[in-house]
């Protein structure tokens, strides 16, 4: 397995605020990686750089050996933590768009997911509840059999029952051998699913380790280590 994502000396600031400081990461295919840290740690910024939404930064970012561009975007399926679709969009329109633009999109999977999540093919987004909108976006993201999935905070602000559904859906649909990066601050819910974990604190990588090894080394769960590192109370 080669490193499908290589990040070298990545620095990013917004004006005078340093958001990412000398980030170095190598990530393999076939792994589920948790990108964990409190709000403001730089998780979303890192993900947006990988997905191509932030192009001004210092350092080198390579996806499958290539810089960010048309090719990297074809490999990456990105689920932002915001609602990024026009309110008038329907599943039907999104289906058509993805069919046209993404070679790795599987319409069949999308339709199955819609059914599983009880979403209507013709219903416009504006008529959906917040939870439904999120499931819609998740379904679209996972219907792509991509090489890399970037999933930003999929379970924050979602009720516990839906959290399970989301995790199950991710596990059931993602393209095997893909790299999945899940950014979250709710480690407890997701720890069992992760191969590796990255701790991001104030823009710096505190830790990047295999979860089993981390648990063995510290004798604690990843969640407990996280709380120690970030001195955080239960959420």
């Amino acid at each position, binding site marked *: 397995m080669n490193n499908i994502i290589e990040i070298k000396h990545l620095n990013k600031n917004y004006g005078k605020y340093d958001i990412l400081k000398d980030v170095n990461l190598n990530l393999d295919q076939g792994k589920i990686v948790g990108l964990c840290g409190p709000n403001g740690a730089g998780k979303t910024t890192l993900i947006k750089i990988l997905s191509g*939404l932030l192009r*001004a930064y210092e350092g080198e970012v390579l996806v499958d050996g290539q810089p960010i561009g048309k090719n990297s975007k074809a490999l990456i399926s990105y689920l932002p933590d*915001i609602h990024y679709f026009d309110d008038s969009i329907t599943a039907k329109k999104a289906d058509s768009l993805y069919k046209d633009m993404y070679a790795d999109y599987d319409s069949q999977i999308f339709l199955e997911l819609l059914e599983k999540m009880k979403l209507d093919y013709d219903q416009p987004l504006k008529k959906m509840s917040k939870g439904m909108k999120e499931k819609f976006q998740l379904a679209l993201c996972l219907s792509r059999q991509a090489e890399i999935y970037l999933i930003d905070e999929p379970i924050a602000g979602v009720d516990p029952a839906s959290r399970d559904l989301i995790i199950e859906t991710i596990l059931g649909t993602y393209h095997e051998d893909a790299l999945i990066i899940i950014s979250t601050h709710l480690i407890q819910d997701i720890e069992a699913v992760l191969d590796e974990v990255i701790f991001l604190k104030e823009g710096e990588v505190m830790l990047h380790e295999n979860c089993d090894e981390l648990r063995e080394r510290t004798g604690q769960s990843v969640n407990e280590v996280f709380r120690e590192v970030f001195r955080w109370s239960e959420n």
Partner: protein
Amino acid sequence: MVGKLIKHEFLDSRKSFMPVIGLIFGSTLVLTIFVKTSLQNNSMAFVNSILLLIFFGMSVAIAVMSLMAMIDLLYKSIYNKNGYRLFTLPVKSWEIVAAKIIVTFIWGIIIGLITFITFTIFLVIVTNGADTVKLIGSLMSYVISELELRFIAASLISFISSNIITITILLFVGSMMNSAYVQNRRGLKTFILYLVITSIVTRITAGFTLNQNILDIIFQETVIINPGILEGFDPLVDGWHHLFTINTWVDGMQVMLKVAFLELIISGLFVFGTIWFWDNKLEVID
């Protein structure tokens, strides 16, 4: 890939442009009713005036909504929330620029055609004549023959280039204001810089065309001296040349082409600038 992009950009922009088309139909309808009722008795005079007011109101709305639709297509649909979708599509930046320009022109052509058709229908209804269509047809072919093909071609090129430069200025300014260099009030700054650059460019190009004769429409002396001659005048039989001729100036045409060429070069620079900003400095924030 550009083709698919054009298709979806077009479909997405329908929402903004449909009201314009609706208003064109609507306002022409209002105008038609206005003209028809103004030919009747005076008890309708009140409604008549209202209709005129509505027509003017709708015309203004058409201009405003067209402008808004352009802004939607060339700015709003690119940044903020929509940027998350557009800039994660597996397309190159030049493909986005090309698609935007082409879709703008497609809408321009559609609106132009619809305006022409509705206005023709309006004229036909109002003049109660099948002749009207023939008249318009013959007028158009007369004008075209007077103008010569090369002049028409030059005008077309000039029209295209001036539209392209407007589009590319907006795209460029938008790309600059949504880069890492600018953090807030991006919309406002885009607007201001757009005005600044447009006025600079206009100043440059206007310098060439000032005091330059391009085209004259000359009404026949005989008609000007004695308009009564027009009684019983039928252009279909007598020919339009009895009414007016059109004179074109070769110099003027050459200047038009020079300006068009200049505009295209400047547009090209703006396109490169847009692509550079998108590829190197883009910052999509919600």
